[in-house]
């Protein structure tokens, strides 16, 4: 059987290697971006000169010689489901028995970025990195970033590493407070400011003003006109489903897939950022543009294709991020605001950038989510608690088991545990916060 995978991001790469381990199928991995799968998460470190291209390849180049996977560095221009073939830009048409679309995301372009302008860029593709390299090789005095997401922070860190004064325009009143509770959002906001980013909060771009096709100014809703010669747009990503929709495959926001990750065309599957689950799994979104989800999809589709698995079943939700030197881990759901059903126990040491939050159900007392900043938690322990729906009191009593701190580090987990035990003993039904 010939399995063709379009896109060699982490979804496509994980599928290819997992499938090669489990089957005798011949596998073809097509990418127009880079001949070898690489870690997109490392784009910033490449730019900062901390690693080289060879260091960020998922597997060393030699690895691909020994596996039964052929790689094609070319662009797929068309999918022909009727004849089971994909058309390539420079090479001959390729026939498949099973086709997997893993085309990932594309940069979301807000209405004000309709036409290509010199000095305006996203940060997603390897091409974007080359563009940023060219833009900053002339050392602009300053740059502006629109959008307060994880990619925005990465871009800010990149620009600051070359001494370019950086301004971020964020729609929310504190960085990411639509996703994180206010206390954490404030810690992150302060940390970003401490690293030298100028934050403009609660504002949005209205218009780009250009001259001779190069950006000159941006107009903000509240702050008015701002001079700008380089603008990074990090307002999110969208599933890249163009190939699929052109081929007549059902798409909505992304490429619609059923529980087996199968599209509306039976021998075509979709995984990673570009896939949209027909039926949302409990507590999950239908599209998840997250590294960890994409990797799980790739690995599980390999099992589905060799009949070792019934359907896609992601593990307990988790995510991690770095805001400069401040690291975040999240397990399960975290409710940013307050609610009658969900109670928070949260503990912070803002001056040391430490924060731990546990959320649980007000009536059943079952744990629903864990969020921490600046401390390390052990993944397997947290996952076990969440999948077993452990009562919060048991979680707190055995909290130290979840510590993944390096040797000699200060024991913040103990401080949190003492506080949380105190709370549970005295007022277990109201949200509790401790700032030390």
């Amino acid at each position, binding site marked *: 059987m010939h399995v063709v995978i379009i896109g060699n991001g982490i979804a496509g790469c994980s599928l290819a290697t997992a499938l090669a381990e489990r089957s005798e199928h011949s596998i073809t991995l097509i990418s127009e971006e880079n001949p070898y799968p690489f870690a997109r998460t490392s784009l910033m*470190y490449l730019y*900062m*000169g*901390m690693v080289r291209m060879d260091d960020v390849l998922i597997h060393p180049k030699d690895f691909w010689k020994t596996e039964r996977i052929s790689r094609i560095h070319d662009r797929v221009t068309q999918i022909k489901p009727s004849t089971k073939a994909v058309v390539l830009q420079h090479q001959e048409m390729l026939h498949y028995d099973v086709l997997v679309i893993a085309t990932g995301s594309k940069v979301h372009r807000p209405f004000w970025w309709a036409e290509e302008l010199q000095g305006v860029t996203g940060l997603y593709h390897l091409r974007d990195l080359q563009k940023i390299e060219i833009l900053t090789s002339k050392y602009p005095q300053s740059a502006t970033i629109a959008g307060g997401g994880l990619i925005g922070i990465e871009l800010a860190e990149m620009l600051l590493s*070359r001494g370019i004064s950086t301004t971020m325009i964020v729609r929310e009143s504190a960085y990411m407070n639509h996703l994180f509770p206010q206390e954490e959002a404030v810690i992150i906001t302060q940390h970003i400011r401490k690293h030298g980013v100028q934050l403009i909060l609660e504002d949005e771009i209205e218009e780009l003003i250009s001259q001779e096709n190069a950006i000159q100014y941006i107009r903000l809703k509240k702050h008015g006109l701002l001079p700008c010669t380089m603008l990074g747009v990090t307002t999110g990503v969208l599933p890249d489903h163009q190939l699929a929709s052109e081929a007549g495959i059902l798409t909505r926001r992304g490429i619609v897939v059923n529980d087996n990750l199968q599209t509306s065309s039976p021998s075509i599957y979709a995984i990673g950022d570009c896939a949209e689950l027909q039926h949302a799994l409990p507590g999950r979104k239908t599209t998840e543009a997250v590294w960890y989800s994409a990797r799980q999809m790739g690995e599980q589709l390999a099992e589905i294709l060799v009949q070792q698995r019934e359907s896609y079943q992601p*593990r307990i939700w988790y995510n991690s991020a770095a805001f400069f030197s401040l690291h975040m881990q999240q397990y399960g759901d975290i409710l940013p605001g307050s609610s009658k059903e969900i109670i928070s126990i949260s503990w912070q040491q803002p001056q040391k950038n430490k924060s731990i939050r546990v959320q649980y159900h007000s009536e059943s007392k079952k744990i629903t989510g864990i969020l921490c900043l600046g401390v390390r938690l052990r993944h397997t322990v947290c996952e076990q608690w969440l999948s077993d729906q452990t009562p919060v009191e048991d979680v707190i009593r055995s909290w130290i088991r979840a510590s993944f701190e390096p040797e000699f580090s200060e024991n913040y987990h103990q401080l949190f545990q003492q506080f949380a035990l105190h709370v549970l003993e005295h007022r277990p039904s109201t949200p509790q916060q401790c700032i030390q």
Partner: protein
Amino acid sequence: MYPVARKDIFGLTPAIYSGLGLLAWLALAAQFWLPLPFRLPVVVASLSYLYLHRKTTERGPKGPEGLWYQPLFSRRWQAWGLAVLLTSLYSILYWRPSWLGLGTGGEENTGLIRLFDPLSHCLKGSPASEWFAYGFFYTWAVILFGITFIRKYKNDRYQVYRTYSIMFFQVAFAFLLPEILMSLRYPYVDIKHFWPLNYSFFFDWHLDGLMAAGKLGWLMLFWGIAGFTIVTPMMTWYYGKRWYCSWVCGCGALAETAGDGFRHLSDKSDTAWRIEQRTIYPIFILCIMMTILVLYTRFTGAETLAGISSHSLSHWYGFVIGSLFSGVAGVGFYPILGNRLWCRFGCPLAAYMGLIQTLRLKYTNEGRPADIKPRFRITTNGGQCISCGQCSNHCEMGIDVKSYAQRGEDIVRASCVGCGICSAVCPRDVLNLELKSEEMPTGKV
């Protein structure tokens, strides 16, 4: 490809240049004006001050900061220049010390080594040797670069504590204590320098020296033997070889401090791993054979065994492994092959501890097979690796840490010296140095 703004071909900033100018002036002043005892302190103090207060960042646009963009740290010609300079200095030190001013045949020291005479007189009552001057420079480098290393990793207590530890062992045990022993007419012994790294421990001159030194000499002989028979295996079993390589060892001390900027240059390929296994273990075996031969000669008086002369074997081991490999190449090639070249490809003590670090003892427990393992490993936090490659890039021992981390596997490798930098630089806190006798609930999630 990448223009470098406001930096010259050496990657140095104007501040460093003005510092160098001032330094040259100070050195000259020290030579001509100051009384001899003040010259070394003035040079050392001014150089240290300039280094620790150098400007590292400048406001306004500048070139890329990463080490792969810095000529000295990315194998460009400036790095080769430094390698040539270092290897030359080592060669002069080993084979032409008179060029540094060492007085031969009863003459007084001159030049560079003369600067060290007052300190040497102070410590042991005799003029400085080239090794005294070298030991001073070595210790000074460990302290100076150790301070910058601590600043760099100030938020990581493991890094801070172990750097204090190597600085302490270098100053007290490698530099001061042997000199003080000599001033008391005892033999020169670095009591943390265990066989087989200290390959001359069982040489005639060393054993004779110890035995002539009375009770203390016997104590040192006993300690030296306990060092490699009891202390090393026990400590390595319980804490991993890092207890020595990253906390105590002198070679490690220089590698972790002065060599820190070169750690990413170690080769991560499978080929390098194969070469490593084919050099480090044979050198360990060679060292054991040489020691047996030397002891055989000592006790039987027979000069050769199976046609091999113990004298010429120990001579050639000292020249090729002791001087050329661990000294000239070991430090001289920092800018080309990374800071742990010797530790990775050559050190027999590292080979010995590496074997213990990866040992598996199989036994049968009530009819069921079981095994005991040493406790040290680097654990991976579930499936949180994002394959960014920083851990592998920073590994001075050339371990492809990422290849384990992205599979959710623990890392148990003979070569790992437990420096902990992979854990410190991971942008997702995925790696942790842990001591666990049972299997931890990690693994891919």
